[in-house]
């Protein structure tokens, strides 16, 4: 418990910095939001009136104070393009992004850890070479290109997956939302046909994003495993006559996993960034696509909200990782 509190406290100054930076960024957005909102037929006067109405003519520091005040009330402003409050927009679209990124992280871990372990058990062997190749090429491929390539091969050429136009094919209606993650919601409702349809739409975007994170995770697993396998305590376990499987599981893997978990935090951060591109490619209705549309329309409140939300997500995940770390590794408590 104390651990969580310490971490949260340490995050406060960073959050302050984040808020300031987001505010500065979005006030710099070119294009006159007032003119846009006033409409194409506006006169200079009506634009001024709109500006005053939106509070855009007040001095910057005052705008900042108003902004922070709003934040404490949970008010992230209003989107000029959708007319809704940013908070509403974000909460509607957030689950889609989280479902996508989180699933992708799980897939990346599920593929990367075995790959890295296999590579570490026989350095220089075939699995090691595959691991190297996948890492290097995976990290060098632009995410958007990979996504488009997958669409071309699996949708256009092979017709194995449906059209990449969002979370669900038009013939289906979305499941009753409990978590917001349609895969879970469909499963909870017991609607297996719907679940299948949801998963079919998820395959390509999740694969694209997962392949992006696969490289670094496999690499870290491999390095960590190699180091652990060469350690004194693994030697002791082997010398004590423990069977190979047991040594691997209880003495090597447990220890090797810790750095991998920490790396997952970083990888998740990269994936959050890349998810913006993936959402664009696959027409995924998440917060990334929302933000990009807002940017192109010089609508700053959504962009502010988006950047803030992303930073918060990242913070949250790091907190979770710290906690899991504390559970797995007793040494954490001795480190002061």
């Amino acid at each position: 418990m104390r651990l969580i509190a310490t971490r949260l406290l340490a995050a406060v100054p960073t959050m302050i910095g984040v808020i300031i930076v987001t505010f500065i960024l979005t006030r710099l957005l070119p294009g006159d939001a007032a003119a846009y909102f006033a409409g194409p037929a506006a006169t200079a006067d009506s634009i001024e009136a709109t500006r005053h109405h939106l509070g855009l003519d007040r001095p910057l520091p005052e705008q900042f104070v108003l902004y922070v005040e709003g934040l404490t009330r949970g008010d992230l402003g209003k989107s000029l393009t959708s007319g809704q409050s940013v908070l509403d927009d974000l909460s509607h679209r957030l689950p889609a992004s989280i479902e996508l990124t989180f699933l992708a992280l799980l897939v990346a871990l599920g593929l990367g850890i075995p790959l890295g372990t296999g590579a570490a058990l026989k350095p220089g062997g075939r699995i090691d070479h595959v691991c190297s190749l996948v890492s290097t090429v995976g990290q060098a491929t632009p995410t958007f290109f990979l996504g488009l390539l997958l669409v071309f091969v699996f949708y256009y050429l092979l017709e194995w997956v449906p059209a990449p136009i969002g979370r669900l094919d038009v013939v289906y209606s979305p499941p009753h939302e409990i978590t917001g993650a349609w895969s879970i919601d469909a499963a909870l409702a017991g609607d297996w046909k719907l679940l299948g349809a949801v998963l079919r739409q998820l395959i390509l975007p999740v694969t694209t994003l997962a392949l992006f994170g696969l490289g670094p995770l496999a690499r870290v697993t491999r390095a960590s495993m190699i180091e652990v396998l060469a350690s004194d305590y693994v030697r002791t376990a082997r010398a004590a006559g423990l069977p190979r499987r047991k040594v691997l599981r209880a003495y090597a893997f447990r220890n090797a996993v810790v750095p991998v978990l920490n790396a997952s935090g970083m990888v998740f951060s990269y994936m959050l960034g890349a998810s913006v591109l993936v959402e664009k490619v696959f027409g995924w209705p998440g917060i990334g696509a929302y933000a990009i549309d807002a940017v192109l329309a010089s609508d700053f409140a959504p962009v502010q909200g988006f950047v803030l939300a992303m930073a918060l997500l990242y913070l949250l995940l790091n907190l979770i990782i710290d906690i899991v770390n504390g559970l797995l590794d007793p040494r954490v408590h001795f480190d002061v």
Partner: protein
Amino acid sequence: MNARASTSPLLAIEALSIRFGDDQCPSTVDAIDLVIGRGEIIALVGESGSGKSLLAHTIAGILTPAASVRAKRFEFAGVDLRSPQEHAFASLRGREIGIVFQNPRSALNPVRTVGSHIADVLHEHRGLRFRRLEAAVIAALAAVRIPEPAARARSYPGELSGGMCQRVMIAMALAGDPSLLVADEPTTGLDTTTQAAILDLILDHARARRMATLFITHDLVLARAYAERIVVMHAGQIVEEAPTDRLFAAPRHPYSAALLSATPANAGTVADLNGIPGNLPKLGVSIPACRFAERCARAIPRCRSERPAFVFDTSRHGAACWVSL
């Protein structure tokens, strides 16, 4: 396989060499012979880098795959261990042969409790489970004289002192009831009182179980206090072997004599302390047949060209030297 019953030697090694790299490279451990009888307590002494640990690891079956072993004879309780090594050692490691390492702290898994270490070994070698296993773990900890064993079993290695960790390692090594215990510098880094306590512990168990002990150290004083026989190693070659008293009374190899005179306990004053000149020969440069030749005051040309044969006298005191004392 009742390793204690018969009278044949427990461990018999003849002309064993360990080398890294191909056959062109000089071997790190060079054609050594070693025989350990049942229940014998033997000390293997030598400087750092003399190959003692390599030999220990080879006997315990955990030699690094980067090294290769060649021997005319390498038998443990009748089992041929030359090759394939993995298969033969699988049933011996941890069971018939136990090993204790130096740096006990780093030799234990920091994220697992001390009790689970011992439980793993007990489960593997004695098939115990659940409550019987728990009781056996506590008993094992008590047997190595760890106070409050039930509480200690739930501690992590990071919470224990070096001496305690070493006791845990000993408990792990003894769990399979081995007939040979290899102790590779078990007390290096511990304070003197703890050193004595640990060695007493090992010896007590050795005598009680009639377990042979190969005790590796660079400290002659410790060797003298605890061992029946001493084997002296230099640069991968065994140079002398003798019952303890005889070695200290009348060493035959110049290196052993030099080691003795370099021991602070033997010398009267600091002025009397003689260091041994030179360093261990580097492998790869042209290396003399007797690897002590370059540092020996008594060396003759034959020492460099022809490896001295190991010659035993009647009282089981042997040395490999053309110009023995």
